């Protein structure tokens, strides 16, 4: 079923929307991504992901007041939907589960070699 999967970047955006709540909009999300991950992201890429997430039903949005810095234009504020929350939880759970299944030994060796 198309549309229920959460891509890596999508998941990142979705998480950040949650972090920034209730002030999550395109530009602030981008700033936060850059701050938190040091990844270079184009504004268009963020908008693209937001639009996809909204299509999948993980995000909902509403238009805010217009501000002067935006040349008198309104911003679109995003919030996580129930569906979005569930998808995040599922991903989180899956990851934790998988992580826990990794044998100690495997990680240890890596840790050693990392040291």
């Amino acid at each position, binding site marked *: 079923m198309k549309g229920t999967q959460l891509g890596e970047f999508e998941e990142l955006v979705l998480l950040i929307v949650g972090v920034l709540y209730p002030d999550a*909009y395109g530009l602030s999300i981008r700033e936060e991504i850059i701050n938190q991950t040091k990844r270079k992201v184009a504004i268009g890429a963020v908008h693209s992901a937001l639009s996809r997430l909204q299509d999948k039903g993980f995000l909902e949005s509403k238009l805010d007041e217009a501000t002067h810095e*935006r040349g008198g234009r309104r*911003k679109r504020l995003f919030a996580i939907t129930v569906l979005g929350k569930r998808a995040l939880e599922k991903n989180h759970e899956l990851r934790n589960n998988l992580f826990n299944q990794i044998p100690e030994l495997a990680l240890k060796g890596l840790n050693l070699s990392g040291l």
Partner: protein
Amino acid sequence: MADRSDISPPKWADRCLSWFCKDELLEEVRGDLHEFYGMERAKKSALKANWSYWYHMLHFLRPFAIKKRIRTRQTPIAMYRSYIKTGFRNLKRQQLASFINVFGLATTIAISLVVYVLIDRQFSLDDFHTDADQIFAVQTRIDWNGTEETWGRTPLLLGPSLEAEVPQVTEMARVSRRSATVRFDDNVFNERLTYADPGYLSIFNFPLSQGQPTSLESKKNIILSLASSEKYFPRTDPIGKDLKIIIDGKAYLFTVTGVAQKFPENASFTFDFLLPFENLKDMHGLDLQGWHDIKSQSVFTFIKLDQSGSSPQVASQLKSYSDVVNEINTDWPVKQFGLYPLPSLARNAQYVRETYASGSTPEILVMFAIISLLLLASACFNYVNISVSMAQKRLSEIAIRKVVGGQRKQLIGQFLTENFVLCFVATIIGALLGIYVLLPGINVLFSGSGYTINIFQDPAILGFLVVLFIALSLISGAYPAFYISSFKPVAILKGKENLSGKNRLGKVFLTAQFFLTFIAIVSGFLFTSINEFQEDQDWGYQASDLLVVPVGDHSQYQALKQFASQSPGIVSSAGSGSQIGISSGQTAIRILDDKFTVRSFNVGPAYFGVMDIDITKGRGFEMGLASDEVNNLVVNQAFIEQISNGEAPFDQLINIDGESYKIVGVTENFHFDDFFSPITPAIFRLVPEARFNYISLKTVPGGLNDTEALVKAEWTDQFPDSPYAGFFQEEVFDNFFASTGSLKSVMNFVAMVAIILSAMGLFGLVSLFIIKKLKEYSIRKVLGAHGGHIIGLVSKQFIVLMSIALIIAAPFSYYGFELLFEQMFPGSIDTVSAGPFLITTAILLAVIFLTISSHILQLLRMNPVKNLRLE
């Protein structure tokens, strides 16, 4: 805080974004980008911030943000049927508007078609000759008393020498045209004969339907045109028959050995009777040997080259021949002989003195072409105006089509299809109108033109019609189609959409149309007044009650003179060698060391009296005065003014061909060619009766027709061998009047069409205007405004438009026509006066007033409540 203008992002990037970005995303995206730009500007230079802005803007070129172009399949065929059907229904429902559109377009199409045919014929003159680009006329550049002129005539020996000495010349033909009397049994007519070398029929493509072209090599053979064969030998086979050709009373027998096929319509020269060239020696006394000076004989030379590219080489070889001629011909030295390509010979005919091919003046054709283009433009204006105004009635159709999923593209397609239907109808009507009404009309007006069109045999004309049809459809249909289809369906259905209030384009069109109409009407009046001016001109002599009979020899003159003295209907008679308006000579004279060329008339002593030419100074010729015959001259006033500086030089010696003459009298000026040409210096010389070619008979007032019948009977009785060719002096300028008269008719027709077209355009615009203001006028009416007041309200702005058009058109046409008339009729300047301009203004005002009041009357008759109640 930064100033607002300080932080506005690059405009072009912003525009670019709005162009491709989805509408629903645009606001937030632009907002984000704007905010981002503000932040960037706080940290970086404007240039870097701009770059960054562009970079991020372009990153929105992703599928999610780009506007979806809705792509549908091409309009299905079935829809076109629907379009055509609704198209025809609309034509039927809006009959008046459709009529105006179709009629306007059809008339202008017909006019353009005819103009196209005229121009096409003019430019395809003589192109039916095979290898026309290898055929050249040799013409003579000559120094004619200081001015260089091109003459069509060439020395007799030039052709044979070229053929023998220049290798590139493959064929040569000399041609000369003379008039003579031709007789077979009872058929006796004066005809024009064409004497030509045998090469004539192989250079030019005049195929024979009977006989062989080579028969021209034998001296006593003659080849007829189809027309003259039918004239002399109706219903009989002419081959082998003997024709009698009579020149100066001497008869020569020729055997008919060939008949030409019907000549093509676009031949600028043909022949009636084709005879071997060498007959010129016996029959007209030409010395065929030697390089005579050119002025005494009228012989044309045509050559055919091996290829068209070798003309420069041949032209350079021609130089040596002018030296040979100039040894004999010292008075008017030949500058050079030139090669003139056959296809352009007729077009340039007017720049050459005496040329073999004849063509009409291109100025008139250019004028016609411009006129037809302007009329076409005018009809298109109308179409645009009217279809936009009529679309008001179809707004709901447009809205419904859009609501049920019709796209703008489809609507445009629909209106264009309708337009194609309408233009198609108009083109067919226009073509029929052109072929069956206008062209025959032109043929009547310009007698002898005889144009015919066969669309299916002439692909060029068919192509012209198709191109015209497509161009008209697109030009006239594009604006209405795009404009009408742009309405928003919701607004229409809510009743909010109205045709945009300004309609500036319509007004510009109407102004342009007033401009064109103004010029057309003015030209109609001016051509009429020129025509009248010319008809009212004093001819300088009395042409009424004057019968002129050409006489072939002395005995004929004497017989008619005898007859004239006995008949009571003839008041007086005079013989002459030349006849004013018909024939005259060019004579070179010398006064001291100055050379002049003057017109010369050879007359008898009674000529001035019979023609009623006033002698203002000195005397006319006297009967039996020997000195008059030898060395006295009478000159016209122009001679005195232009050659003798206003004084009558009675004791001045004038040298003509080595003889000395003295002026004994001065006549008033009179017109001898036409009214276009200014009167030039002319001389009269007294000649003996034996050299008379005409006898002029002055009849009692009103007795012209009776006298002619008597004279004719007497003539046929006495001279059965010669045709009677008498004419009325009044009619000598008839051809000339006919040509300006035809122009007048054409221009008046054009003016009529222009008036009708602009009235139609006005009609369309006024109805649009009134529809929009229907409520306003209804309220005014309810409140007690009377008709005149409303007419005034409506007319005001149209009169403003007209005034603008007038202010531009008046000086434009004034100077334009003055220039044109100076070119066309140099004799009649000062005919452009204020009168036509005032009358034209009045006509235009009347048209505006009538069109508007016809609308308003309708409005006034309506119950205003009906218009107001609709809401």
